[in-house]
């Protein structure tokens, strides 16, 4: 099923992401996804997230699909040139994977293979353009595809709490112009900034899912503030995480905070995307508390 169908039905669309392991045994990932994520619309699979080498996104998507889940194939431009990207897109179509999240990707310098060559032959916008072209039955080199052209729901990301939000909006507009169907955002901890962002972003007429990370500890929040672009956890939230260490450790405080953010953002967007970062087991409780 294409995620765009759920948006068209007017659903508040819930997705969550899973990260493939650094190894080829995937049973644990599949088990967690089946147990905790089977009730939601679709499951994102990250593509060598943070430039750390892992099991492939496409293979994991196929395994999830075989288990009856709806995968979203995340595809970055960091590791593949335009030939490899298009080839993987056709492979996805062959497996019946219909949902894409198309990204530029983190730089190789951020990951665990710092000596690797960063590719960036295409970027997020030209990758969307490329998919659009494949859907018209022509590859980026201008050659006709053989047989049926693939059809995808084409997603992209945007960073609503970025300190350069105007440049982000300009990029979002280019993604829409290139053919993007829906957006998932970087994690939001400042609902008021997200709401201001949506006031400007709604003109593009594309569904937006607010990005949510469940904060695990005050230390994690501070780490994100210092190191992760587009994320700022306010001081009072860090205080809240510090207040009752046991409660925070059990995930209760983090889930309360995340549920509150979802509730505040919900009237302004079309869905939520949860990046549980290993806390997939907390997703059902989070959704319950958020009233979804």
């Amino acid at each position: 099923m294409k995620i765009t169908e759920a948006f068209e039905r007017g659903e508040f669309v819930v997705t969550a992401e899973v990260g493939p392991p650094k190894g080829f045994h995937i049973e644990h990932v599949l088990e967690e996804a089946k147990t905790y994520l089977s009730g939601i619309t679709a499951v994102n699979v990250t593509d060598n997230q943070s430039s750390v080498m892992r099991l492939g996104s496409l293979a994991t998507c196929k395994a999830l699909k075989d288990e009856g889940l709806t995968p979203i194939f995340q595809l970055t431009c960091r590791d593949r040139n335009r030939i490899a990207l298009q080839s993987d897109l056709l492979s996805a179509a062959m497996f019946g994977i219909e949902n894409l999240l198309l990204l530029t990707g983190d730089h190789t310098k951020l990951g665990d293979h710092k000596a690797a060559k960063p590719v960036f032959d295409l970027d997020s916008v030209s990758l969307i353009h490329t998919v659009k072209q494949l859907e018209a039955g022509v590859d980026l080199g201008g050659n006709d595809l053989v047989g049926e052209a693939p059809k995808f729901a084409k997603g992209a990301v945007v960073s609503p709490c970025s300190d350069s939000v105007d440049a982000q909006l300009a990029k979002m507009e280019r993604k829409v112009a290139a053919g993007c169907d829906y957006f998932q955002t970087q994690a939001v901890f400042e609902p008021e900034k997200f709401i201001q962002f949506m006031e400007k972003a709604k003109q593009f007429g594309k569904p937006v899912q607010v990005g949510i990370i469940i904060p695990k500890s005050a230390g994690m929040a501070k780490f994100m503030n210092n190191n992760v672009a587009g994320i700022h956890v306010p001081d009072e939230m860090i205080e809240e995480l510090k207040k009752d260490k046991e409660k925070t450790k059990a995930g209760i405080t983090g889930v309360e905070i995340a549920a509150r953010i979802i509730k505040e953002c919900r009237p302004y967007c079309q869905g939520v995307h949860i990046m549980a970062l290993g806390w997939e087991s907390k997703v059902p409780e989070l959704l319950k508390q958020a009233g979804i």
Partner: protein
Amino acid sequence: MLITQLKAKETIVSLAAGKKVFIINCQGCKEVHFPEAEVKELEKELADSGNVTGTITTDYICNPENMKLRLEKHKSEIEAADAVLVFSCGVGVQTVAGYLEDKKVYAACDTYPLPGFQGVTPLEYNCDQCGECYLNLTGGICPITACSKSLVNGQCGGSKNGKCEVDSEMECGWERIYRRLAQVGRLDALKCPTQVRNFATDDEVSK
């Protein structure tokens, strides 16, 4: 050695259309092949239209001090112009754009590399000689060299406090580009069609 090649005539004419322009030619560098005859012919056509406020043919505009000195004598002509059209390699265009902060500065040439001895690119190395100059879409700041991912369609999500995710000392190139386009009233340049890079640099590509 570097080769600068004139952009397509229609491209240059459309850059100058409806504007008063000041023209800068750089012919200093002995290692650069400069399309002198074609430039002269084109500039004559532009001048005949009556919209050229002044022309200067000089050398080494890539050297900021030298460039400032040369432009000083043409201050009023530059002030009278809506835009400055630069016939030089990518380094020269960026040096002029950096100096004339409030002016629209356009590149009239694409810069191609040629194997062998590389020409004089003094001070900051900020032209990659990619052969498809983007400076007219990016306010005279090169996205190939100013962005660590060489993105040509806008900012990625990796900028924090205006700095690049790769190097906390390096300013985000696309933030610089956005700021500059806002400053010269050219944010509409961001609405250009999706750019797909051409790595086959032997092809003639003009923007």
